[in-house]
């Protein structure tokens, strides 16, 4: 599929063709590259970000776990683990509510992947972390508060 993609991209040039491949079902939308949710990543308010991610009415779920320190000494790099026990988890998004740009990452998982992601994020100050999980077209949410002693300046 990759080889075909290269060829098609060369022939057609750019995103339009890629979007067309998604539309025709050659490429599964959830896994497609180049499908960045620009509105979500540029969102400067939590509401805008959640709206752009289709998560304005997300259902709270106890099957999503956010592991983070209760108190983070250094907001420049806070270790974070998000796990989902929701069957057929396709996407995991991480939002940092108090940061200027709310959406830290949106992961699109293949079936081969265990739905647990470890990463490090910046936190400007004490904040809630939101984890969104998309499974079978529905979006679920969980939140956790992290106290930050020294903010990740400007993050």
């Amino acid at each position, binding site marked *: 599929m990759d080889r075909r993609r290269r060829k098609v991209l060369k022939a057609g040039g750019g995103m339009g063709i890629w979007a067309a491949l998604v539309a025709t079902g050659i490429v599964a939308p959830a896994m497609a590259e180049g499908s*960045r949710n620009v509105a979500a990543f540029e969102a400067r308010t939590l509401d805008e970000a959640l709206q752009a991610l289709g998560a304005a009415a997300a259902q709270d779920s106890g099957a999503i776990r956010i592991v983070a320190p209760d108190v983070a000494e250094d907001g420049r790099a806070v270790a974070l683990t998000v796990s989902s026990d929701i069957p057929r988890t396709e996407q995991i998004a991480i939002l940092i509510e108090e940061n200027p740009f709310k959406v830290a*990452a949106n992961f*699109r998982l293949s079936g081969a*992947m*265990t739905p647990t992601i470890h990463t490090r994020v910046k936190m400007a100050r004490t904040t809630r972390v939101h984890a969104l999980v998309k499974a079978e077209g529905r979006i679920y949410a969980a939140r956790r508060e992290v106290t930050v002693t020294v903010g990740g300046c400007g993050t």
Partner: protein
Amino acid sequence: MTAPTRIRATLKEGATELRMLLAHPMENGLRKDAEGKLIPAHFITELSVRRNGELVLAADFGPSISTNPYLAFSLAGGAVGDEIAVSWRDNRGETRSDTIRIA
């Protein structure tokens, strides 16, 4: 020139555990330098991880991911000799791709 992505892969109980450290400043475009000048935004926007050519994880990043992004996760299955490729693209269009083979 950017530094290579450091990739570690270990086979454990029928799974492949992956850890990676990407070299990138991840500037959000809102910080100022010592002279009060705005440091331009410079961050990874897209990441893909492939195993033997098959896409296993695609991700979009914003600048709230830490400088020199760290990522760890695991994949079902795996064998010695599997090729793991990690590629990224940033907001300036720079790209980087690194590959390891599971030993």
